[in-house]
């Protein structure tokens, strides 16, 4: 996005900026609206009142400051997983494995949170968070190396590694590091120490600000550094990057590692800020939601924040909706899938909005044989 024009005439360039913003946002907004309309139809078919359901959904997510805090708390790991997926997209990689990387991040942060003792609060939390992020990065290095040096497609390897991650984290939380205090039988690790907890400011979780900061850093890395330029070049054309003398294999690996770092940090923040320990099943789906969020946010770091808040709001309000309107909360998954469909099948939406496709905003991923 060329939002870096020097302003000659204030109002003129502001108008241009507004119309550019509209061009970027029109498709995601229309996709969200279409998904909500079809969701309402599905709700009506299954015998519920869509207006009551949506009212309850909004009440549960934005109704009061407490609900809003819950929305932001739900959005926090989603921003990270959205960033992870979007970052990989920039190099033409589809990291479906954000889920597995996030699980390892959540687990390792929890382990650092209860095993390391005697550290001051701020330092302990930082260390635990970085430990989780590093775990995610290392786990993402596997598909990165495989893609870069053997050509094994990251879509399949990352999905397979998700199953590996689920099994191994389950084993650790139910075996060697199981919480045995007070005759506990549930598979979970012990609770983290107070010094490792990431606090909230009032109702707003501090982790949310970290997520926003991470978005800014990712934007800076992608558009203001040489590495970011290389990553985007590899994403647009690996051949051009190769002939320009860039180390494509290295860039691919490093992109996956950074992507995994972001996903792992998302898991770490969830553990240290919300859950307070690692418990299998508590982080289910957060990584997969990252795909929807990355695409809804047009794979731009600043687009991901509102997209994550939207999905976070649907998660935060789902139980209120279930309680007040008697609607199974899985409907939010359906609506989310529809959003993903309409935002990616943007030709359909463009026909409705009568706008033309812009060049250079299409994501291209590599097929099987290519590196």
């Amino acid at each position: 996005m060329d939002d870096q024009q020097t302003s000659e005439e204030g109002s003129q360039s502001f108008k241009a900026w507004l119309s550019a913003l509209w061009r970027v946002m029109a498709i995601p907004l229309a996709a969200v609206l279409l998904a909500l309309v079809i969701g309402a139809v599905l709700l009506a078919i299954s015998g519920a009142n869509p207006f009551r359901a949506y009212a309850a959904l909004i009440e549960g997510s934005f109704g009061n400051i407490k609900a809003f805090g819950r929305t932001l708390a739900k959005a926090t790991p989603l921003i990270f997983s959205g960033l992870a997926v979007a970052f990989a997209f920039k190099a033409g990689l589809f990291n479906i494995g954000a889920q597995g990387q996030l699980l390892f991040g959540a687990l390792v942060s929890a382990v650092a949170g209860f095993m390391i003792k005697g550290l001051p609060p701020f330092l302990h939390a930082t260390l635990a968070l970085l430990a989780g992020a590093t775990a995610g990065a290392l786990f993402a290095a596997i598909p990165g190396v495989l893609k870069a040096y053997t050509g094994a497609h990251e879509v399949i390897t990352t999905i397979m590694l998700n199953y590996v991650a689920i099994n191994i984290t389950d084993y650790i939380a139910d075996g060697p590091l199981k919480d045995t205090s007070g005759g506990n039988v549930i598979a979970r690790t012990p609770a983290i120490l107070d010094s490792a907890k990431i606090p909230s400011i009032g109702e707003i979780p501090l982790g949310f600000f970290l997520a926003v900061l991470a978005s800014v850093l990712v934007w800076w890395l992608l558009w203001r550094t040489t590495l970011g330029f290389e990553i985007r070049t590899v994403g647009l054309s690996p051949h051009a990057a190769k002939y320009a003398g860039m180390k494509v294999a290295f860039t691919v690996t490093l992109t996956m590692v950074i992507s995994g770092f972001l996903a792992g940090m998302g898991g770490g923040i969830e553990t240290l800020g919300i859950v307070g320990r690692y418990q299998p099943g508590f982080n289910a789906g957060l990584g997969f939601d990252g795909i929807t969020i990355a695409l809804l946010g047009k794979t731009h770091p600043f687009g991901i924040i509102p997209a994550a808040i939207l999905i976070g709001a649907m998660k935060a309000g789902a139980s209120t909706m279930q309680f007040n309107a008697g609607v199974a909360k899985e409907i939010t998954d359906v609506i989310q899938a529809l959003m993903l469909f309409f935002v990616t099948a943007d030709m359909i939406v463009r026909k409705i909005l009568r706008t033309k496709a812009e060049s250079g905003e299409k994501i291209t991923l590599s097929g099987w044989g290519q590196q």
Partner: protein
Amino acid sequence: MQTTTTLPAPVSPWKRFLKQWGMTLGIVLSVVVIIIWQYSLNENITEAVLASTIRQSTPLVLGALCGLLGERSAVINIGIEGQMLLGAFIGFLVNVWTGNLLLAVFAAIITGAIMGLLLAYMSVTLKMDQIIGGTVINILALGLTGYFYQVGLTTNGKLQPIPLGPLADIPIVGPALFNNPPITYATFVLVILVHYILFYTKWGLRTRAVGEHPRAADTLGINVFKVRYVNVIIGGAIAGLAGAFLTLEAVGSFERNMTNGRGFVALAVMIFGKFTPLGAWGAALLFGFASAMQTQLQFAGINVPHQFIGILPYVLTIVVLAGFVGRTHVPAADGVPYEKE
């Protein structure tokens, strides 16, 4: 690229045969030896493992057939998982409502075909990125089945094995090959049928031409879009059948996300099988064998945490991909939407 005028040195056909099939032959021979040896030790367990191998491999072969029909016409199908899952769910629901198994299988096939149509629409007409298109199908299927699923429903009966007369009494292979429920038999037939269609018919030649060089195919008057649509829709129908296998033949009920990654393992099977139905069958049997051994190891009470045994098929998939993807010929136009001039 064969642009130079020098021809490659002639290779004896025997050497070429060995180079192409040597590894496959080696694997097959060693598996046969192991099976006979095991059979001499304990015939019941051997027969159980073989039968389980066939059972585990069935959804994988069907998924791989779905995948390779698309890929041979240059449409990457990452949505096999979702097509299978939705097929399994709709087949299950229709059976619960009507009590009819045949109608349920039919419904699953139609569901798969409709999902195939959706993928074809996204990748051929809308020219979306095919990998994202397939992911949309997966997430959509997961969301829809999750929302409409009700706990505690079971099917009215399951598809039962039909022994094929005296064939079923042949030692070792009899129970595994000739005493199966209908969808498993259908799978055997489909593998051979798809192989025949793909390599010995006009339609198959057109499909492969569209996958390798759509422009040339178009110039010769082949309707590239139509070929891709038909292949992806038939592929979807086969994935739907794989779904029907899961709910109506193997389990008898539906669970959330019951496909458990089989659609993706099927893609690895397809690549391992060099994008041919017979090759995919062999690869699927190997994966099925790994899963069957997994169950046997758990029964044998070997002291390994079940989670470690559980990751075996997934690790095997990764190893296969890393080892084979660079060495197989992928259809040249795979994943590239066709733009008519």
